[in-house]
């Protein structure tokens, strides 16, 4: 039991405790319910996509296009609604658009064999481009009130819809990743795709499912983003992929695949959200916040490496 604390998740729990303690000490309004909800709401779309990204990175792939799919889905929704399509139908169409984007990525990655870094990098540019084609220079607002309410107001108890969705996805994804055969396959492919294939795992099918899921979740997050802001622009969700990948990597998921846990990602998400919230409450600018998260990411990997190197040196000397 004590050994667990030496693991990555244990370290994250420690950092989280320190962060929350610092926040409580430095900002009296930190512990209010409203602040806690705001803490999540500000980045809720990113952390929803981070849950899906966890699968992708454990599978030794990467999806750099998620933020662009978010933006594309949001912009497509705006354009559809502005042209008289009922919002409910527009939501379904945009989700299908996310599925299509994921499937397009999956084709090149799983079937044509082009590395996911390359494919999703090109599609990051392309999907963002399509979003800009749809919206050009305009912004679109004037969504139905029920749509904006879903994004901003409380849905179940004090929690907005987006937080409910996050908690649901967290539960479902944790179960699938850690307690099902499919989850095991994801890990195995990440460790060694060739070995997995020779062992009978349908590698192509798993990869296709993951990237389609990533596209669908990104589209859902894009719609939630549009609802929360009650407006869309061509540059919606630009640059989000960096934060999302940072949260997943900080959570102990190895960039090389095959290792990681949903618990780690959850803890890392909580750390990043609390850090940003605490800094914002203490009037630290967004740029410095991003810099701090960057340092945290590097230190989180560098620290354990240094400790290990020091241990080896001491061990070799004795």
């Amino acid at each position, binding site marked *: 039991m004590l050994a667990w604390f030496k693991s990555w998740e244990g370290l994250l729990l420690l950092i989280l405790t320190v962060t929350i303690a610092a926040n409580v000490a430095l900002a009296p309004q930190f512990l209010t319910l409203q602040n806690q909800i705001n803490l999540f709401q500000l980045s809720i779309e990113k952390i929803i996509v981070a849950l899906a990204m966890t699968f992708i990175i454990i599978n030794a792939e990467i999806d750099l296009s998620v933020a662009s799919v978010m933006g594309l889905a949001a912009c497509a929704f705006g354009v559809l609604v502005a042209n008289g399509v009922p919002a409910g139908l527009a939501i379904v169409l945009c989700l299908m658009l996310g599925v299509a984007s994921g499937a397009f990525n999956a084709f090149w990655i799983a079937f*044509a064999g082009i590395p996911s870094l390359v494919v999703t990098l090109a599609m990051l540019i*392309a999907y963002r481009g399509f979003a800009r084609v749809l919206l050009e220079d305009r912004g679109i607002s004037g969504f139905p009130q029920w749509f904006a309410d879903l994004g901003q107001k409380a849905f179940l108890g004090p929690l907005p819809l987006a937080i409910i969705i996050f908690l649901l996805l967290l539960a479902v994804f944790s179960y699938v990743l850690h307690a099902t055969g499919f989850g095991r396959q994801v890990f195995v492919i990440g460790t060694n795709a060739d070995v997995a294939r020779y062992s009978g795992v349908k590698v192509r099918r798993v990869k296709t499912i993951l990237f389609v899921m990533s596209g669908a979740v990104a589209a859902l997050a894009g719609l939630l983003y549009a609802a929360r802001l009650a407006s869309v622009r061509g540059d919606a969700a630009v640059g989000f992929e960096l934060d999302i990948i940072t949260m997943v990597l900080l959570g102990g998921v190895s960039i090389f695949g095959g290792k990681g846990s949903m618990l780690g990602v959850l803890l890392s998400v909580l750390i990043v959200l609390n850090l940003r919230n605490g800094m914002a409450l203490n009037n630290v600018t967004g740029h410095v916040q991003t810099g701090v998260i960057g340092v945290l990411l590097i230190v989180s990997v560098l620290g354990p490496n240094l400790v290990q190197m020091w241990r080896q040196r001491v061990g070799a000397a004795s």
Partner: protein
Amino acid sequence: MIGMLRNLHPQTLRILALFIVLILTILFFATQIDGYFSPRMINRIATSVAVILPIAIGQALVVMTRNIDLSVGSIVGIVAYIIGDYLGSHGDINPVLVILLALALGAFCGAINGVLVAYGKVPSIIVTLGTLALFRTFLVEYSDARTITTSGLPQWLVDLPQVNLFSIGNFDMRLIVALALAAALLAWLALSRLRMARKIYAVGSNPDAAIVAGINAQRVVFVSFVLSGLLAGLAGFIFLAKFGNITVVAGLGFELKSVAAVVVGGVNIFGGSGSILGVLIGSVLVDTIDNSLTRWALVSEFWRDALLGMLIMAAVAADTFMTRSFGRLKRGAN
């Protein structure tokens, strides 16, 4: 003809395929845009490539060692801004010294990356994601949101984009283009002849085997990041000369373009192989597509990014397909 193809090295085949794609692209745009082959157009594209080419070469060096450098955009921004700012108050420094300063500043940023990746053993995607944010944050704080304008820069710098090395009839070889090409030439010479540089291929191809063979893999990786930063510094200088007005978002997005150019240019993303000639063609291709799309009357400017992404996708797919087909042809004949 198939027989001739059979005897070629796969790397050469790949570059040949890439070159064909470039020619086809240029021919296509020539039919769509008036005056495509005019000296003015060629100069525009050449000076644009002059900014991205050094970055792409630096990125190629890093990618060949099985790493990636996502911070190059931020390094370009930092160098362009700080050098511009410095020149504002010290306007009469020797131009060569200014270029050296830019290189040194870029190399310093690259060294930070290099230390963390090579000696701290932190995966390069994590380090450069972090320094991408960190360098940009530093720039924002340093600049206090001021903008560098051409009025603050010495005249020689403002005029630099127009200076020609030589002219043949109407076609000018701009000095900054020559600078970028010289960097490419140096890199190509080094990688094909210098043993020190050949080690880059070894480390990327199989790090463990390289270490066992006595190569100091850590130092090679460190040096590759320093070079990437140095070349990004050169690009930052060219960027400053070309644009003059530098904001805090200068260089944003260059990392994507450089990786695109490198990948399109045939450098294996898993390291260990790639040629500077391929990177050159890749940079020219990506930048030509980008520049040509803005001038294509048929599509509005808003289609630019969408088409660029799809075209990069197509170039990589075509390249993969051609490499596999040629490879199969070659194998089938034996």
